[in-house]
Each structure stands twice: as structure tokens, then as C-alpha cells.
């Protein structure tokens, strides 16, 4: 300790300042690792999101138990799957900033002199990872409960593309919005009120290719590529806007 101080003083006398600033990527990795470690210890977010997804599936069971034909379920499946993802991500996004706020972690992060957008990227990535894990569990479950008797289209594995693109956009916008709503009264409702309309174009552009691929009707690839182009464009624009505006939101 004493030696360190003396070397620092020596350097200051010599007109040098020794500062080792970690690279932006290192900061990003640290922040992301913090979120993931917290999750691995408590498993709070994944369990609550997973159980919530399962419960929504059970509610669907009550609704879809009335349909007689498997083809009806196929037509509905894209939309139902996306409704499941939207509700589950709402739950996850609500929680993602609650810890930070309750345990005063956000103040600590904000004290570090670094680019604020790194916080956005790290937080969005961790939200994206949690959502993807939940989807990996929920989609097979959805198939298990409702689609085992139905005959999906030939290219139904392409479903992964709209799921991935949609989840990226949701994680991006959701991170910005949950940062906003964590400081408001009635934050859960507030997040839903802001999140659902802003996510809607993306939802629309992702649900239609999902349905098209699952049903596999004639010319489904045309619908697929067109909608995916729209969804991708919306993703890029929204992520850029959120990334730019995040600085203001987190500093306010």
C-alpha cells in the first residue's frame, strides 16, 4: 500500500499519470458477467419466467381444448406463441431493473466513468439471453402440448429466425423502457402500457412469418422473406434509437 502510494507520487512528480482504463469490451463483459452470475446464484428470473410461460400454456390449454381440428391450432400457433413470448418478456423485463434499484446497484454502476451505452448493451444482452433460454424451453413445450397431432409445414425449423429477430428487438426496446418505468409509480402496468404499442410493429412482422412457416402453405417463403425484412429494419432502427437515447434515460 505504502509502496504503491510512493510510486504514484513519483510518477506524478515526473509528470506522468498512471491510469489503466479497461477497454469498453472489458467493461461490457464485466457488466454482463455480473448479471449472469447473479442469475446463476438465485435462479430467480429464469424460474419465474419459466413457470409463468408454463402457466400461460395451461391457460391456452383451456382455450384450445375447444378447437376440434388440428389445422385450426396450426393457424393459431404463431400468434399464440408470440403472445406467450410478449407476456413472459414483460415479466422478465420488469424484474431486470428491480434488483438494481432495490439494492442500489445502479448508483454504483453510474459512478464508474464509462460510456453509458455500454450499460445498455450489457443489460440488453443479458435480457436477450434470459429470453432465449425461456424460448428454448417454451417452444418445445408448446409443441408438446398442442402440436403433436398436427402436421407442420416442411420448413418449420425456419421458425427460429423470426423468433431470434423478434427477441433481439424486444430485448433492446424493453431494456430502454424498463429503465424508464422502474422510476415511475405503478411500474408493472406502466411497462406494459409503453412496451406493447412500441413492440407491436415487430410483433406483427414476426408473427406472420412464424405462422407462414408453421402452416407451410403455398409460397410461404415470400411472406417469410418480406416480413423478415420489415422486422429486421424495425429492429435496426429501434436498437439504434434506444442506444442513442439510453444515455439521457439512465442519467436522468
Amino acid at each position: 500500500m505504502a509502496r504503491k502510494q510512493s510510486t504514484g507520487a513519483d510518477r506524478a512528480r515526473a509528470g506522468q499519470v498512471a491510469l489503466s482504463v479497461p477497454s469498453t469490451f472489458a467493461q461490457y463483459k464485466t457488466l454482463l458477467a455480473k448479471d449472469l452470475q447473479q442469475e446463476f446464484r438465485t435462479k430467480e428470473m429464469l424460474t419465474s419466467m419459466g413457470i409463468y410461460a408454463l402457466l400461460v400454456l395451461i391457460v391456452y390449454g383451456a382455450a384450445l381444448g375447444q378447437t376440434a381440428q388440428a389445422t385450426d391450432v396450426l393457424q393459431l400457433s404463431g400468434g399464440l406463441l408470440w403472445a406467450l413470448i410478449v407476456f413472459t418478456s414483460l415479466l422478465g423485463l420488469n424484474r431486470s431493473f428491480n434488483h438494481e434499484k432495490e439494492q442500489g446497484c445502479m448508483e454504483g454502476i453510474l459512478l464508474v466513468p464509462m460510456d453509458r451505452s455500454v450499460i445498455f448493451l450489457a443489460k440488453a444482452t443479458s435480457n436477450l439471453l434470459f429470453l432465449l433460454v425461456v424460448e428454448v424451453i417454451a417452444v418445445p413445450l408448446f409443441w408438446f402440448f398442442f402440436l403433436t397431432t398436427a402436421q407442420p409445414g416442411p420448413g418449420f425449423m425456419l421458425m427460429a429466425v423470426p423468433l431470434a429477430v423478434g427477441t433481439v428487438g424486444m430485448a433492446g426496446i424493453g431494456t430502454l423502457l424498463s429503465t424508464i418505468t422502474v422510476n415511475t409509480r405503478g411500474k408493472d402496468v406502466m411497462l406494459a402500457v409503453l412496451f406493447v404499442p412500441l413492440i407491436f410493429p415487430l410483433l406483427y412482422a414476426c408473427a406472420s412469418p412464424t405462422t407462414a412457416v408453421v402452416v407451410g402453405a403455398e409460397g410461404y417463403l415470400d411472406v417469410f422473406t418480406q416480413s423478415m425484412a420489415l422486422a429486421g429494419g424495425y429492429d435496426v432502427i429501434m436498437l439504434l434509437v434506444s442506444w442513442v437515447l439510453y444515455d439521457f434515460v439512465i442519467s436522468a
Partner: protein
Amino acid sequence: MTNKPVKLPEAGQWPDKVAPWALLAGIVLSTLGFLMAFLYAGPVNGAAVDGVELIGGQMVANKLLLSQKIFYFHMPVALVSFCALAFACYYSVRFLATKNQRFDTCAKVCMEISLVFVICTMITGDLWERFEWGVWWTWEPRLTTYLILMLIVIAYFVLRNAIDEPERCGVYAAVIAIIAMVDVPICFMITRLIPSSVHPVVLREGGMSGDMGMTVAVCLAGLLLVGFALYRFRFRQVRLQERLQALKDEVEVLEERR
């Protein structure tokens, strides 16, 4: 506009002098547009009938649609709502750049104006739709994106009500106003992006004839002026309230000091 630092929230620049005249001109022009829509612009042809009849020196073989007269206010009102949203976005950017409370008020009032005109668009569109399509609502791309736009504008005010600190409220609201702007081009372009939509598109249906174009232009000019006058009036009123609040705070300080 003055650049000197002011203690109280200021108000009353040149737009306040223009606003009454804008209101007058707006009322005159939109009334003129209303009359032109019914008396000057030609009727629009609907489905063909079997038979031809001579009306006013012209051969008519289609049903004449009166319901199309709603269009002369429906489209300008929608354009004014987009315009107000664009201004709200502009003032929000200015607010984020300067943190001047004045721009926050500007953005808020712009959003109110856009909400009023969005509701007007919804009402006129919905009644036309009820008559022509026979349904109150259909999940058609243009209608859906516009509904989403309305929900975002409403969410903007819900968010403002849920935050107590004025500074933070301004920043968050500005961010939402800027994000809301992303939906405006989508809503505008959606009938081109998804050509299967049932919503009529003027350009796709061969453009407007001269008399129709003239009527729409007059209505648009009138409603833009009305929108501007409403904005300025409301802005003046809200600004006055803020000045009063600042004065009250000062008087309280004086009372305490005594």
C-alpha cells in the same frame, strides 16, 4: 426569441400575435373547404349500375357516393396529427439538448394537439368505414398502425402522470416522444409496404381530379392553421400556469423570510 436568461418562464413572442389571425384564417379556410367538399368537388363513382342516366349534362353509369365527402376532412386531419407529432419530436430533441423546461412544455402541448387530431381521424375514419365496409373495426394494416400510434400518444400522457420529479418526467417523456416518431413513417408507408390492405390509397386509385385536389388543399391549409392556433393558445395557457407557479413559490419564500 430572446436569448437572455430569464428568471420566470417567458411567454408572448411573435407567434402569439400571429395566432389569432391564424385561427381566423383557419376557421374561414376550413369552412370554405367544408362548403367546397359538398358544393364544388365532384361526386365519386362507386359500383356500376345497369343503365345510364344523364345528370347535369354528363352520362353517369355508377352509384354516386356521398360518404366519400368524409375524406376531405379525414386526410387533412390525419396529416395535421402527423405534423404535430413531428413537432413534438423536434421539441423533445431540443429539450434533451438544452434541458430547457420551455421545450418540454412545447412538446407536451404538441402531443396534446396530436392526440386531439388523432381522435378526430379515428372518428371520421370509423364512421366512413362503418358505412362503406359495414364494420366498426377491422384489423387492417393502416388502421392497426394508426391505433398503435394513438396508444403510444396516450401512453405518453400516462407516463407523464406517473412521475413526480419534473426534470425526470421531461426527459422520459421526450424519449418516448422520439421513439413514437418511428411509428409515424411506418403508419404513413404501410399502405405501400403491404399493398393488400383494403384502406384506400389516393395515388393507387389514380390520383385526385383537380377539383378534389383543390378542396383537400383548402381543408389541409385551414386545419393546419387551426391546429397551430390551438397549439399556441394552449401553450400560452400552460405557460401562464407555470409562470404563476413560479411567482407563488417566490411569494412563499418572501412570507417565510418575514
